[in-house]
């Protein structure tokens, strides 16, 4: 399946940004072959709620400088933040939430990129 260049570049940029702020266990999934409606997920763990917020701010700020803004989200949780950039959706979670909701497990067949 042909990857959308822009989406793949955005995934790489988000992974870099998360790395800069020491996000843990950063994983990107290509869901297009296993889902009718989802494209790419980037998952990352934060060590605490303040770290989670710092990761969120950093990604939002840096992508905002490039003119990219996430679609507005209805409600957030202190353990799980979703940033929706269209084809690429970023899930920032505490390790407990990451393990509990196990999104990677739900899409175990998805290609990791």
């Amino acid at each position, binding site marked *: 399946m042909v990857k959308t260049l822009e989406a793949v570049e955005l995934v790489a940029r988000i992974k870099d940004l998360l790395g800069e702020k020491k996000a843990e266990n950063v994983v990107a999934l290509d869901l297009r072959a296993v889902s*009718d*409606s989802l494209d790419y997920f980037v998952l990352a763990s934060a060590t605490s709620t303040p770290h989670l917020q710092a990761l969120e701010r950093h990604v939002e700020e840096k992508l905002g400088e490039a003119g990219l803004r996430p679609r507005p*989200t209805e*409600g957030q949780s202190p353990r799980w933040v*979703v940033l929706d950039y269209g084809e690429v959706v970023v899930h920032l979670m505490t390790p*407990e939430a990451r*393990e509990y909701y*196990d999104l990677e*497990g739900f899409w175990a067949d998805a290609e990791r990129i």
Partner: protein
Amino acid sequence: MRPRLSFLLLSLALFALGGVLSWPRPLGEGEVRSLRAGPLPEMGVVVAARDIEYCGYHTPCGPGSRTDTIFYVRIRGGEARALAIPRDLFSPVAGGKINSAYARGGAELLKRAVEEATGLVAERHLILTLESVARVVDAVGGVEVYLDRPMRYTDRAAKLFIDFPAGRLHLNGEEAVKYMRFRHDALGDYARLDRIKGVISQVLKKAQDPRTWPALALALREAWRELDTDLSLEEVLAHFPAVQGLRLSLATLPTREGRGTFLYVDEGAKAQVLAAWMGRTLPSSPPQVPVRLRGERELVLWGQALLAREGVEVQVEEAEVGRSAVYAKDLEAGGYFAELFHLPLLAPHQPVVGVVVELGPDLVE
């Protein structure tokens, strides 16, 4: 972004599938691990909502034991088919109206009563409170409805104050519960069930969007503490991936009026509805029924062009629409167009000529 399907089960947990009964302590992350367990199993679930109990005049004291809203939901092969059961239905096994079955014999009696009425096997139950329903509606950001006329009702004893103007409205969870409880219009309880169907289909659609997931997960963890169900959270988590692409259709069990205020199952109509509802196979070519498209001008024109390619001529009507859906009494014909437009099929009690496809602004959001 295209419509997102996947955490559907999170909301199905309230409206069709899951939850945990009487968890001994608040559920913590990490305490439950999902089991990876293949495709969603076929199952019949009785989903009911408990009304509010009044301990005295003006004194609501929490969830009551009467269930005015009862659905039989069949999950099978990527599809959830839900049948609304009118609350005034006479239930021989309950010895009264079906909405009192839960009070008289708990979930087991309610399941037996639903099985007796529908002739379908109910393996599981999920009994909700109105608060948990409101929480989930809030978690997906509320619902949009369109009212032809204002909806006003005051029941001081029930502390139910409804005052919605006509037109397109956005309702939060508490307002959506009021909207679903209202039954003071010409068609009474049937119209109420039709409104509930509309809200359920919207909540499921919105739950497909990953942006709703964190809030929805929180709302459900809260709600699970109040639920009466025999479905475990492990089961719910195990089947998350399998509900991607889950399609929804909703109909009402046909009834006829009888002695007193009781309703009785209309056996002839029931046989027809169930045959179409349970064994429905979608026609491969467009069914020969009148089709009407309603909605904003651009959307209706788009729909008209899409249907023209299928060789279907339609009537068009410019109208304000709350959310997109397909309405039909004929479940096979309705199913064809629901599939074509990727919309839920809502079979209302109110008369529908042929198939009506409503296209709302949610299609282009």
